[in-house]
């Protein structure tokens, strides 16, 4: 039933494969979280400037992606992404077959999902900044860019950190869905190993423990960051 002796490192076990898979999960999570935050900032910007069209597009994007299962979004980008990229390349006169690699597609797919959650967190924490501060900064003669850099973003980071921590946990767990695209991360590795060794229980429990470790450790990291960023504020 259990074959935990198969988890040793080296040629006879799956230990090193699982280590690489764990690093792959972390890589995809970090890349897509970063890209997601970037997309989220654009989305928030589109929502808060007084423009009906950009606001409609941003609202449409967040509503649709949050209302559709993550698996469906991943399938759509995995199977439809190549066609979109090729049709864009065609406009620029490039007619050869293009295939995006699994890591790129995984990162884009998870980022598109995670950006919708991040954008809600960031928008809420932007709205939590009192208007008086921005007005005061303007009265001091600061330009838009330095207001963003020195007044808005430090406070947004402090307000948003707990929420972003939650989004990170969701993103980390969503990467397990990427296994359907064939990218070898923890989930895919556990399926491969259990098919070879005929012991799904062993390797699925291994995967569960690895995810548990990742979520717990990153939870700790976010706690420390929160403490760090709320120095001087009563908690």
């Amino acid at each position: 039933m259990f074959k935990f002796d198969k988890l040793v490192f080296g040629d006879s076990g799956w230990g090193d494969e699982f280590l690489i898979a764990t690093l792959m999960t972390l890589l995809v999570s970090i890349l897509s979280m970063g890209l997601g935050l970037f997309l989220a900032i654009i989305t928030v910007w589109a929502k808060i400037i007084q423009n009906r069209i950009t606001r409609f597009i941003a609202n449409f994007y967040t509503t649709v992606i949050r209302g559709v299962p993550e698996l469906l979004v991943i399938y759509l980008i995995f199977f439809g992404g190549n066609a979109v990229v090729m049709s864009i390349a065609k406009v620029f006169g490039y007619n050869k077959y293009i295939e995006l690699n699994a890591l790129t597609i995984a990162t884009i797919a998870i980022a598109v999902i995670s950006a919708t959650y991040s954008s809600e967190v960031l928008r809420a924490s932007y709205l939590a900044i009192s208007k008086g501060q921005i007005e005061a900064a303007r009265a001091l003669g600061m330009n838009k860019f330095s207001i963003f850099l020195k007044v808005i973003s430090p406070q947004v980071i402090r307000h948003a950190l707990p929420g972003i921590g939650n989004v990170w946990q969701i993103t980390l767990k969503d990467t397990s869905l990427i296994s359907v695209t064939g990218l070898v991360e923890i989930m895919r590795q556990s399926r491969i190993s259990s098919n070879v060794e005929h012991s799904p229980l062993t390797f699925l429990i291994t995967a569960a423990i690895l995810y548990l470790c990742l979520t717990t450790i990153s939870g700790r990291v976010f706690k420390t960051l929160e403490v760090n960023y709320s120095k001087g504020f009563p908690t």
Partner: protein
Amino acid sequence: MIEFFSNIQNSLIYKNFFLVLSGLDNTILLLLISLPLGFILALLFALGRLSKIAFLSRTIASYIFIIRGTPLLVQIYLIYFGLGSVKFIRESFLWYALKEPFWCGVIALTINTVAYGAEIFRGGIQSIEKSQVESGLSLGFGKFLLLRKIILPIAIRKVLPSYGNELILMVKATSLVSLTTYMEMTGIARKIMAKTFAPVEAFIAAGILYLFLNFLMVQFVKYLEWKYNPHLRLNN
């Protein structure tokens, strides 16, 4: 005009739409069993988590920790592939349920939603003002009466918005059950894609149906909030 409609009727999305629609009942069946069951169990687990019996509270806390720390996909695979590989489970009565992808899906979804729901309800119960409980006690309410008449009604009302979020996450989570060969909407969309090599049309048809399902869920939660929070209604 007629040309326009015949174009729509011949389009792939339109045809796929009805094919995917035939999987809607399977999706709803999953939800109809796992959501009510999850609701009741989550309430019980929240009460157990808050009980003074240290063993019970700690067991439930670690259950919640494990379930919330691992992806749902791992849980579904563990139940469908993992438990199915154990010999004595295959020979016991449990096998009647566990050999069906449907029941594996229901079990996994229920286990998952109970963990999240219990945390939501715990927050609701803990946010009740002490004076409410004390006034109940001063009226001579017993423990059970206190729970039934004061604690649970207030707690459930308070957590309705966040429990609504959990319900929507559950609607989306049913799509993962398709990975255990269960033919609900996502499974059918994938089958269409394998047949027609037109992925975008198949998945957009499924996406529209999921959006519609979630829209209904949002309206349902809004109605519940409107009904059970009359003091928060804007205009009477």
